[in-house]
């Protein structure tokens, strides 16, 4: 063995050692791949952070300097800390209440103790949870309507001709244009002394649903109507009844397209939801951003920046989750790559 080969070997070892835990997990470590999948993204992020902090230092706003990465990172911590403190407060509140109730019951056995809910301020983490629940419920509701509708349209040319103009006209409408109408209709129709969910939740959910609907309807109907002629013939030769034809041939054949529609609409839904929450003051990340903006403290911009990053990460996570489900559920793996 020559000296040169020894040197190159040790260099290789040096490169792969920080990633050797991947090899331990059964993930093959290939130096070329490591370069493009690990090293380059890290370099990209570092360069971005440098540009950001450089730019931030030179921007003065009425709320102080534009936050750089370090300040934003500190706000991550403090937002989490606020959440923990708020939870402790709530816990203490419930404990006090329990104690008080126990004392009253001891004094008066007929007394039926009441538990009052804690009404503290919603923390950043609560807002995240609210936004996620809202987007998922709107999305699922839309899927429930859009997929059967898309299948019906895809199967029936006459129905397609009737529904298509409506879809084409409503598709380009920003769901935010619907928001005032949705708000008014919900307040007019959803009257209940003991509401199951808040009106604001319904408003955001319906808005999300409206924007999820069209991509799913269109993709499903295209998937169904572009069904391979030969597969239809197979179904005809077998004399499959209509319901079985849909269940065994049409539905599985259009699953890849249905997933494409679902991924598209989930991405749009997440963007729209934040805007809807800002506009309508519905609880959620959008409201958090708006409240911080109105609040105007010296921390506000950094806290908004935290929200921006979190919104981005969650949006990315939602898309990846959808992709994972698609990989698991769809037979056509080639359409589920990235």
């Amino acid at each position, binding site marked *: 063995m020559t000296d040169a080969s020894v040197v190159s070997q040790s260099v290789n070892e040096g490169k792969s050692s920080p990633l050797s835990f991947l090899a331990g997990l059964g993930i093959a470590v290939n130096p070329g791949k490591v370069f493009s999948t690990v090293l380059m993204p890290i370099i990209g992020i570092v360069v971005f952070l440098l540009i950001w902090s450089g730019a931030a230092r030179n921007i003065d706003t009425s709320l102080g300097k534009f936050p750089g990465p370090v300040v934003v990172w500190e706000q991550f911590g403090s937002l989490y800390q606020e959440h923990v403190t708020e939870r402790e407060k709530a816990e203490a509140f419930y404990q006090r209440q329990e104690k008080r109730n126990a004392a009253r019951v001891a004094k008066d056995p007929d007394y039926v103790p009441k538990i009052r809910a804690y009404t503290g301020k919603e923390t950043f983490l609560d807002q995240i949870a609210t936004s996620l629940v809202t987007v998922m419920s709107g999305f699922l509701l839309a899927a429930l309507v859009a997929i059967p509708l898309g299948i019906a349209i895809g199967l029936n040319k006459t129905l397609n001709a009737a529904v298509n103009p409506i879809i084409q006209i409503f598709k380009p409408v920003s769901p935010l244009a619907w928001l005032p109408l949705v708000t008014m209709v919900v307040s007019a129709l959803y009257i209940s002394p003991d509401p199951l969910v808040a009106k604001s939740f319904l408003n955001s959910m319906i808005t999300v649903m409206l924007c999820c609907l069209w991509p799913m309807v269109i993709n499903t109907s295209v998937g169904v109507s572009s069904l391979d002629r*030969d597969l239809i*013939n197979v179904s*005809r030769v*077998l*004399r499959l009844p209509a319901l079985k034809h849909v269940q065994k041939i049409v539905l*599985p054949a259009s699953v890849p397209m249905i997933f494409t529609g679902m991924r598209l609409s989930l991405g749009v839904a997440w963007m729209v939801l934040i805007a809807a929450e800002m506009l309508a003051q519905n609880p959620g990340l959008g409201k958090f951003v708006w409240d911080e903006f109105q609040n105007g403290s010296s921390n506000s911009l950094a806290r908004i920046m935290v929200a921006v990053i979190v919104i981005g990460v969650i949006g990315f996570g939602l898309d990846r989750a959808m992709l994972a489900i698609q990989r698991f559920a769809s*037979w056509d793996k080639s359409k589920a790559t990235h």
Partner: protein
Amino acid sequence: MSTLLDISHIDMVFDTPKGPFTALKGVDLKIAKGEFVSLIGHSGCGKSTVLNIVAGLLQASSGGVILNGREVSEPGPDRAVVFQNHSLLPWLTAYQNVELAVKQVFGRTKGKAEIKEWIEHNLQLVHMDHAMHKRPDEISGGMKQRVGIARALAMQPEILLMDEPFGALDALTRAHMQDSLMEIQQELNNTVIMITHDVDEAVLLSDRIVMMSNGPAATVGEILEINLERPRGRLELAQDPEYTRLRSEVLKFLYEKQRKVEPMVKPRVRKKVQESRQHEAA
């Protein structure tokens, strides 16, 4: 031998934007039980149209098809079709593809164990029992076609319709498939109509070759009886003078009597191509 299938006086007229187009005119053919018939002819002569009419996937403009004394009006599993591009459901395994057909045809008459056995039996017949639980994208083109044949056989059809079943396969695989088909045919003695472009394939497999004239208004041109003894082996036949004679009969029909005289590119089309090229250049 009694007639199983009677194709009688079939005309097929398609409506096109340029007016009606007569694809078939007066096609007449009687097929006996257990007979293997090949349809051969130049592309566009309406072979597939004949097959689709027998399958019930197309309705003839006039005339009709009678199977076992009853007129064919819609598709059904008694006329199983093997499609050119296998047409397996890509999300199902080989076993499940056959299962869909078997359950549809025998779901009421056969028990669970019997159904399983019947599916496996048919996959064994086409030598696909080793890859039963693989999906179409995991097996080769020839194997897909084998599964397609197993699916058709599993329906126990009165007549098996094959639309260029080996057209998309390479020559070696095709030869394998032909041997397999002859083997199966010897065991089951099915009635088969097969469309082919391949003269050797037609002579090797068939009892009769139906040669179709060119369209429009295509019809049955000549019928050639193939009285070669079975079982047939492709190597022995290569030396057989009778085989050579039959082969040249078919070739004569295709390349002398029904020669296509069109130039490769029609003048009008050529002009259009030029125009579009100029358009692109601009």
